[in-house]
């Protein structure tokens, strides 16, 4: 058996079912071996999309996503995808071909130092130098990618290794003396955390992406204690937004209630989050009165940005139930009165005294699906609107590029999610800027007839950049105008064999959305929306959470044309 076959067999033994990828010279032996294998391969049209699809496959299913690419440009095209997965802790195993070992370092055709390039943006990476190491390396890669704090692992396989005769064994043991994730929380720390929580009068819980694996545990904790719950952008789906205990999303474009709660609380239970700067704003003004209980599986996140008074290193699935057992219902009625008042004053709202707006389009999708679908997003204003108006009810169904903020993520992510959850409707909320960054994947969607609806909130602008330019750069709209050269998205979709719709008014939108969803077929819905809409509230970059600009979320601004929305 040759190395190339060994790669596939080893992947199969790890439970890989679907591989996203694109062939090329240096990985041809693997693709040749694939010809005879049962493994399902999804041909993407750009390696970056393959990496995003594999990433979303993991996020949607909890099973490691796999992507193949060739050497040089194939591998460098993975870079954005790997960095995205690394930032959002997503388990991806990338296998890249490389030039034969003797040619490595000679600037051979399609050669790049992939091992060197991907080191800083992966959890770990390998350059295979011996064919018999393949089973061990693949096993290690899966273990590293999916355990502890998940992350991407890259395996670079030179072509001569793919062609070498294998004489080793598939029975391998993973022995990594330097890698022992702490899963079980320290009993003493859990007791200390419980004591701090019992003593709090104004506590909040903040759940991040780590909560995607601990839905039951998060919900049981919240239910028993009655603690208000804030879910970060990555934590959407870990706690249903419709439950009265939910305060929504915190941070730069978070809800007024969530951000006020942070400023006024006396304790934060941070669960599986890393206090990213988009959540904290200026650190010195973040939760100034709060004691912080920080539960995370990655010790390096504890006290990295926000000092933890009670650190608990461990898996939420272990720590939260044990913490829940120590606690009863918290005595926080007064705190709830305050929160209820804020919540009552600041429901989600948007104004309809203008042409179609992104918010109402997104709201229509939420209404039509009830939030029981998979939502992926691109990056920008539409992403923030979707986070606030279209949070999903279940874990692993909200898929967005949070840490890296990768435009071009949402469309291929919808593909990965669709393969992970066959048959489920997937809605990709996109902008006209982002969607063009991986638009070629419409071919992949067509090829597999995936039930994906790409909803483009098309304001003819790079909306978020435009918003910053309006607010912070004296309305100097530099290089954000797209409308004069955007394609006709409906016709573009049709060129790929996909149903396309250009929608200009709210009546048509309201009529078409449920209808197109019901078809269960791929579709591109291009909603031409008001170009100058802004996302509020907003905490300007570098400002404190308490310096939030409430903007059109302020009730004084509300009038008859304002639609107030209960999310969930």
């Amino acid at each position, binding site marked *: 058996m040759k190395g190339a076959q060994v790669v596939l067999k080893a992947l199969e033994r790890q439970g890989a079912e679907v591989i996203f990828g694109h062939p090329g010279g240096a990985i041809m032996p693997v693709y040749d071996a694939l010809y005879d294998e049962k493994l399902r391969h999804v041909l993407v049209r750009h390696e970056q999309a393959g990496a995003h699809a594999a990433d979303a496959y993991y996020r949607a299913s909890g099973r490691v996503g796999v992507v193949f690419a060739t050497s040089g440009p194939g591998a460098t095209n993975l870079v954005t995808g790997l960095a995205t997965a690394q930032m959002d802790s997503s388990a991806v195993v990338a296998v890249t071909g490389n030039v034969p070992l003797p040619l490595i370092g000679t600037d051979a055709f399609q050669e790049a130092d992939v091992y*060197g390039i991907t080191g800083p943006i992966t959890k770990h990476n390998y*350059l295979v*130098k011996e064919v018999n190491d393949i089973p061990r390396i693949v096993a290690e890669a899966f273990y*590293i990618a999916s355990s502890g704090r998940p992350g991407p692992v890259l395996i670079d396989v030179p072509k001569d290794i793919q062609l070498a005769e294998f004489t080793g064994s598939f029975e391998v043991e993973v022995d990594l003396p*330097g890698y022992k994730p702490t899963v079980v929380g320290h009993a003493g720390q859990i007791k200390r955390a419980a004591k701090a929580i019992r003593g709090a009068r104004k506590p909040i819980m903040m759940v991040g992406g780590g909560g995607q694996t601990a839905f039951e545990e998060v919900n049981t904790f919240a239910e028993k204690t009655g603690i208000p719950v804030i879910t970060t952008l990555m934590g959407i789906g870990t706690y249903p937004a419709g439950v009265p205990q939910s305060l929504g999303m915190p941070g730069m474009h978070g809800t007024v209630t969530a951000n006020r709660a942070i400023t006024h609380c006396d304790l934060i239970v941070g669960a599986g989050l890393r206090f990213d700067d988009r959540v904290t704003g200026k650190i010195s003004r973040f939760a100034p009165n709060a004691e912080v209980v920080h539960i995370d599986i990655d*010790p390096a996140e504890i006290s990295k940005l926000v000092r933890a008074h009670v650190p608990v290193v461990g898996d939420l699935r272990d720590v939260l139930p044990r913490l829940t057992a120590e606690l009863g219902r918290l005595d926080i009625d007064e705190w709830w009165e305050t929160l209820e008042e804020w919540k009552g004053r600041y429901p989600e709202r948007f104004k309809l005294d203008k042409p179609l707006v992104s918010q109402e389009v997104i709201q229509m999708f939420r209404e039509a699906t009830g939030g029981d679908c998979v939502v992926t997003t691109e990056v920008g204003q539409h992403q923030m609107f979707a986070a606030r108006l279209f949070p999903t009810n279940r874990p692993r169904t909200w898929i967005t590029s949070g840490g890296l903020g990768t435009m071009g993520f949402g469309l291929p992510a919808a593909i990965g999610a669709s393969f992970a959850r066959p048959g489920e409707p997937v809605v990709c909320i996109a902008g006209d800027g982002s969607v063009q960054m991986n638009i070629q994947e419409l071919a992949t969607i067509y090829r597999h007839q995936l039930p994906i609806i790409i909803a483009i909130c098309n304001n003819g602008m790079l909306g978020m950049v435009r918003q910053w330019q309006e607010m912070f750069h004296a309305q100097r709209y530099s290089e954000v105008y797209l409308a004069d050269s955007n394609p006709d998205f409906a016709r573009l979709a049709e060129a790929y064999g996909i149903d396309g719709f250009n929608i200009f008014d709210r009546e048509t939108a309201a009529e078409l959305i449920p209808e197109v969803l019901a078809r269960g077929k791929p579709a591109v819905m291009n909603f031409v929306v008001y170009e100058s809409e802004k996302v509020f509230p907003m905490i300007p970059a570098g400002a404190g959470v308490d310096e939030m600009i409430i903007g059109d979320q302020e009730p004084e601004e509300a009038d008859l044309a304002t639609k107030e929305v209960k999310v969930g």
Partner: protein
Amino acid sequence: MIDRHILSVTVRDRPGVLVRIAGLFARRGFNIESLSVAQSFQPGISRTTFVVSGEDATIEQVEKQLQKLIDVIKVVDHTKSKYVDRELMLIKVQVDTAEDRVEIRQIAQDFRARIVDVAREALVFEVTGDEGKLTAFIDQMQVFGIVELIRTGRIALPRSAADPKPGAKQARAA
């Protein structure tokens, strides 16, 4: 407060491990003042010693980030407890006159520096000690003229009282 820390990092002897560590320091803006790498007594395991300076929180972050690297087995900040540290230096000193030669050799003797190469115009010394001693020796030799010098960077071990379970025995028991 910015302090100097000596970190011992035990790593698996894998290709690229040093690049990974160096890359981590560079990316997170930590400055390496000195670095020494060598095999340990266990096959496949190397021990590297870094001298880095930074605030306590920064150093704690360095340690945690190092610990996250898969090939890093153990990170110890010696400066948190009692330790011994040494550095080796080779220094070539210019010898102009016979009197200088006598004087240089006398000073070297005081520092317990060994002569490892003798020539008409220069002497090469091997000096071992802590940082203060090496610096003092360099100061003394400056008046004669230093032709070249090289230092290994500091290496350190915890004092026995601070580490009652020697690694070797632990390994055997396992």
